[in-house]
Structures are given as structure tokens and as C-alpha cells.
């Protein structure tokens, strides 16, 4: 077992992060002016990157079915592409599978005692295996934040490895739960812990969406830079998923600007970048329809809209 010296020496090895500097850097992304074709391209790209998510106690097979339909066909306009995946609880995977198997839309399932991860490893692994055998293409796991903050870095990493093995062919997304790690130094350290055992194409992900603070341009940037440094050092391409809190198309474009200017063109696709979101999809659709017709449509024009008047 490592003590907190382990964390300090890891940070020393990978380099620390200055919070003021990161916040200043990301403020510039929000000043990029994305117009005309670039806007349409960005909106479409963002749509293909959405992991359309429902993670509620009140989820039912019926709710999941309508989510799947929405993911396959976000709007009547067939120019608007399907999303990357739907993201559901393990119990809902088999219901999603009925509608999505054989389509381009992947089934992602949170597992490992989401969102807290506070269960025994055995149970967490069993949950992963169950979700995969029910048809999940992708597993969104949570790291053991308690172990991380207690300085047990090896344990955090071993658990990620164990989950990875339980995934088999399924893609793994490792949720760091950035708001509980709190500092950018910790977020960078946790990113490296995960990336060093992940396969190319596996993801690191900001948050569960279940705490007060979720994806921000700041933690997104810290993780993108970690991915870049890991890639330049090893050649391994790790993917990224900010989740929670990105509700508007405009915000999504700012996140994509960060990807474009930090990792470049090779990460501007759904295999390398995703948005964990629900309300975002309809705003993307709304903006795309506006670009086409020149006017904003009423919220009720869009299926599954939760905004009404």
C-alpha cells in the first residue's frame, strides 16, 4: 500500500497543474467565434458524440425505449445523425439491446456501484460482467475516490485493471469524479493512473453527473493535456468524455474547440471524444434546424423535449 508520498511523487513525475493558468487558457476557448459552415459542422459532430443518458431511479424499459429511439433519430430531419450511444443503468441494458443491437448506436452502461463506487470489488466486477453479458458495448466505471484520497494509488489502479479485464471486448470509460478529487493536480494524477492501464480507445471521463460540479472546460483541459502527454510519451490514444453540466450547443462547441486546439484533428470523432448528456441533444438539434431554416423552432417541436410552455 502506498501512502500520500505516492501521490506526491506521481505528481512530481507527471508535472503539476496551475489552476490560474488553466482557467485562463480555457477562457480563450469560449471567445472563439464559430460561424456558418464551421458551426453546422461542429453541431453535427457534437451530435455524433453524444452519449444520450438517463440515470434515474425512475427509469423504466419504456423510458429507455424512447431514449433509444431518440438516439437513433434525434429529429425528423434525416440530415441529423444518430448519437454515439445511449448510457443507462445495468438493469436497463437488455431493454436497450432490443432496439439498438445491429445499429450504429452503442449501448453504454454505468457499472461498479455507480455513482459512489462504495461496494466491494467483487460486487462491482460482477455488475460489470452482467452488463456486458446483457449486451453493453461500453462500460462507464467509477474509480475508488476514497482509496485515491487515502493515497492508495496502487489499489485504484489495480481496480481499474480488474474492471478492464471484466469488460472483455467492451470499451471502458473511467470516471474520475473530478469534483471529489477537487484539485487539478489530483485530476491529472488520476488521469495518468487510469491511462497507464487502459487500452487505446478506452476513455477517461470527468464525472458521474451526480455531484454538484460536473464537466467544466477546466477539468476537460487538464484531462485533454494528460491524454496528449500520455500519447506523445507512449503512442497510446486515449479517448475523453466530459459528462454532466453541458446543456447547450454553445458550450459543447467550446469543448470541441478545446479538443481541436489541444489534441488536434485525430480526436475530433466519436471514437475519441464523447459528451455525456441528455438535454444537450435537443439544443444541438434546435441549433441545426435554426441554421437550416433561419428561425428558432418552439421547444415542443423537438421530441423528448423537457422544455415546454
Amino acid at each position, binding site marked *: 500500500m502506498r501512502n500520500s508520498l505516492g501521490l506526491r511523487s506521481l505528481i512530481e513525475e507527471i*508535472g*503539476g*497543474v*496551475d489552476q*490560474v*493558468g*488553466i482557467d*485562463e*487558457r480555457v477562457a480563450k476557448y469560449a*471567445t*472563439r*467565434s*464559430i*460561424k*456558418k*459552415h*464551421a*458551426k453546422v*459542422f*461542429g453541431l453535427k*459532430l457534437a451530435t455524433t458524440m453524444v452519449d444520450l443518458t438517463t440515470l434515474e431511479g425512475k427509469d423504466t424499459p419504456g423510458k429507455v425505449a424512447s431514449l433509444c429511439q431518440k438516439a437513433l433519430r434525434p429529429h425528423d430531419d434525416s440530415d441529423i445523425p444518430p448519437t454515439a450511444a445511449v448510457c443507462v443503468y445495468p438493469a436497463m441494458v437488455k431493454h436497450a439491446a432490443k432496439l439498438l443491437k445491429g445499429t450504429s448506436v452503442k449501448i453504454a452502461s454505468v457499472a461498479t456501484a455507480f455513482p459512489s463506487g462504495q461496494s466491494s470489488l467483487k460486487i462491482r466486477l460482477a455488475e460489470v460482467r452482467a452488463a456486458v453479458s446483457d449486451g453493453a458495448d461500453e462500460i462507464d466505471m467509477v474509480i475508488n475516490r476514497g482509496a485515491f484520497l487515502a493515497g492508495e494509488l496502487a489499489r485504484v489502479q489495480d481496480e481499474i*485493471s480488474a474492471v*478492464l*479485464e471484466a469488460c*472483455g*471486448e467492451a470499451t471502458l470509460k473511467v470516471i474520475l469524479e473530478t469534483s471529489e478529487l477537487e484539485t487539478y493536480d489530483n485530476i491529472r494524477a488520476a488521469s495518468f493512473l487510469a491511462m497507464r*492501464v487502459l*487500452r*487505446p*480507445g478506452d476513455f477517461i471521463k470527468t464525472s458521474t453527473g451526480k455531484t454538484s460540479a460536473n464537466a467544466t472546460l477546466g477539468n476537460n483541459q487538464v484531462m485533454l*493535456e494528460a491524454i*496528449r502527454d500520455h*500519447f*506523445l510519451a*507512449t*503512442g*497510446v*490514444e486515449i479517448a475523453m468524455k466530459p459528462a454532466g453540466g453541458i446543456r447547450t450547443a454553445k458550450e459543447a462547441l467550446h469543448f*470541441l474547440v478545446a479538443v*481541436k*486546439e*489541444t*489534441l*488536434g*484533428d*485525430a480526436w*475530433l470523432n466519436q471514437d475519441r471524444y464523447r459528451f455525456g448528456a441528455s438535454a444537450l441533444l435537443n439544443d444541438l438539434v434546435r441549433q441545426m434546424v435554426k441554421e437550416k431554416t433561419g428561425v428558432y423552432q418552439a421547444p415542443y417541436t423537438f421530441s423528448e423535449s423537457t422544455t415546454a410552455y
Partner: protein
Amino acid sequence: MHSPKRTARPVARELLFGNLWEYDAAPESSPAFIDASYGLFIGGKWVAPKTRKTFYSISPRNEEKLSEIALAGAADVDAAYQAAAKAFPAWSKLPGSERAKYLFRIARLLQDRAREFAVAETLDGGKPIKESRDFDLPMAAAHFFYHAGWADKLNYVTPGRVLEPLGVVGQVIPWNFPLLMLAWKLAPALATGNTVVIKPAETTSITALKFASILQDAGLPPGVINIVTGAGDTGAAVVNHPLAAKIAFTGSTAVGKSIQRALAGTGKRLTLELGGKAANIVFEDAPIDQAVEGIINGIFFNQGHVCCAGSRLLVQESIANQVLSKLKIRMKSLRTGDPLDKNTDVGAINSRAQLDRIHELVASGVAEGAELYQPVCELPHKGFYFPPTLFSKVSQSHRIARDEIFGPVLSILTFRTPEEAIEKANNTHYGLSAGVWTDKGSLILKMSNELKAGVVWANSYNKFDPSSPFGGYKESGFGREGGKQGLLDYAKLKATF
């Protein structure tokens, strides 16, 4: 390791910053309302120059004429001084709280018309619209707000002592931050009760002239601020006028020295804010990505037309390669081009003359054996542009390590120990600013104590605040602008017992 099917491809480990998602042109479309011609602003009125001469201000973004500007001669400058002298008694006797009202009004009017002024600044000077919009204009307004706050509190600057105004102040300002430098100069002068004759740089007169309309709208008494335009001869007339109680100059060290010579024995007060060749010092324990961002910001902000630009990067040898490669990656996503485009990071070089100077110094760097790097970028065909440039393998004796280039050109030197960093940083005629990047607080304090520079930024660069005094050591000048200390350069201190 875990899944044999998905192992790392033996890829060339290079990031591709291509055109998969190219931003469309996003030109700022707000009008700048630039008049076809401008006279001189003397005694609250527009007057034609007695020289009957004019010159054109052109836009460095495309070399098109923007406006015809009056060329002030000695007689015009004299008229401006007479107007300022006439306005001085009433203005200086106004209660501070009344002068504050004018300053607050000017600040608010500047905010109201910020976009228009930002566009004018970008058209005339070539700086990216995002900088004039997000930096120059807000900061100019902030200086008026800050000094408005001081105007009625002058008795508390040095408690128990009285600050008295100097009289008529002559001010000559540069072309890199035309409106902001005007604000830096005018705000403290007015707050302390002086009247002013100010001359903007000949390539960037427009925002100063537009500013005259703000003075009119604010109802500033005629003659309190007089604006004369022209080049070096006009500047000399401003500097040498017998009515001037003080000269404030921002510009090159060579001109600053000649002003100091001319003023010797005249009894005029003088403050000089001159050139710089700032060291930006990066230690091995620094947060590298943020340091890289700070280096980029330090040298490419305003195309490097910044007297405090971090133009000498001193990087610890152990991390030199890492920093260099990260700098190169970062430079690939810098966008150089039309300054009016909202996505432009590096705009146009201010003038043909400055572009020629940059070319000459860069050529000397190559000739002296430094290693040049410029990212691939397509520059506009018309206008004055220079790509972001860095030189590695630079040594202390290279011209590019000693002369102020005043362009988007970074010279990279290395050091091994803090002592060596201090020696190299201080091994320059200049001493305006410096940057220190390290995670170690005590090292920041040690460096700050040892660096011969008026401003030291720790883990940041190019940070400005009206409340912070700005000014240099050595040949970077003397006097301070901003803060409580800046007020003292516009006042006589009187102790009454």
C-alpha cells in the same frame, strides 16, 4: 496488455492540427465611425493645422487609407499649450470630487462605446479585435475609473502632506496600445488637477482623435485636454515647449534619452517608460503547460509590440527540450491573420517600418547561428504580417538576445541554476519586467528580490491593474504609472507644519 487485439499502433507520435474543422471567417462587423479627416483638438474645438499639412493613417491589416490627419507644427503645439495654460487655473481649483465626476463620465462613455473604439483600434493599429475588445478597452476604462476614485482623496495619498498639480503636462505616447497609453497618461494627470497637451503616435492617432468626442460629450472644460497629431517633429515641439511643467513619454529608449538630454536644466519634470527585453524564467518544477501558455502570452500578445514582452525565455536546461517541443505544438494552433477576425490570435504588424525592423533582426538571428522555428501559416497577401517565431540555441551575445525586437519573436536561452538565471536575466540594458515560473514560493521571492525589473510576474505574465505601479529600472525608464505611486509623478508634494 489486457486485450491483445487493441495494442498501441506504432504511430508517428505527432498531433495533427489540420483543417478538419476549419473556423469560418468571423469578421467583427460593428462600425468604427472613423471620420474621413481629423483636425487638431485644441481648446475644446477642432481646428485646422496652421501648417496646412496633413498625413494619412493607414490600416496595417490591408494598407488602406483610413483617415487624413492634421500635421501639427510648432505654432499648433504652442496654441495647444496656451489653451491648456488658460484652462489650468479653473481646472486645478475644482474640488477633487468635481474632477472625479468628469473622470467617471469619461470612463462610462468609453464603456458605452467600447466596441466602436475596439474596432477603430484594430483597424488603425493592427492588433487582434479580441485583444482590443477584451483588453485595451476595458483596461482603458478601468484606468479612468480608478483615478476618478483618487481625485477627491489626494490628501490621503501621503497623509498629512498635500499634493499640488504641476501645471500643463506634455505627453507623448506610442503606437502599441494607443488608447490604453492615452488612458494611462491622461487619467492620473486629470485626477491630480493638471491640464494636458498629448500627442499620439503618427501611425495610430485615430482612437485618440475619436476620444476627443468623448471629452466633448463628457463636457470637459475646453483646454483641459488638447490633442495634437504628427510625427517626431511634433513630438519634439511638445517636449520642448517652455510652458510644459512635466513631460511624460512612453516609447523607445533612444528617443527617451534624447528627451532627457533636451530637458536637462529646464526644470521640467520627466517620466520615461521605455523599452524592455524581459526575461521569462522557467524552472524545472514549474507547471509546464501553464508556463508554455504564459510564454506564448508573454511574447505573442499584441504581436510582441509590448514593452514588457517576455522576449527572452530563460529555461532550465533539464526541461529545455520539453518546453521547446510543447511551445512548438502550442504555436501550431495560433491563428495569425486579419486582426478584425474574432478568431485571430496574432494580428498585423503596426507599420511597414516595424515589419522591416523585425525582418532585419530575425535575419541577424539566423546569420548568428540561432535556430529558427515558425509554424506553417498562410499570411494575408496585403498588409504587414509576420509569423510567430522562436529562436532556440540563442546565446547572450546574439543581437536577438540583446536588442528589443518589438515583434512576435522569442529568443530561448537556457540556464542551470537560479544564480545563473539571475545573472542572465539582469544582463541587459533594460529592466522593465520579468516572469518567474516555479512551484516553489520561496524561489519566487528570492528571484523577485534579485531581478532588476520594475514588475515581476509570478506564474503569470502580462497582468495589469490600474492599482499596480508600472515602470522600469535602468534604461527602461523612470517614474511609475498606475497605483498610488503614479499620482506622485503628476504632483508636487508639499509638507506644511
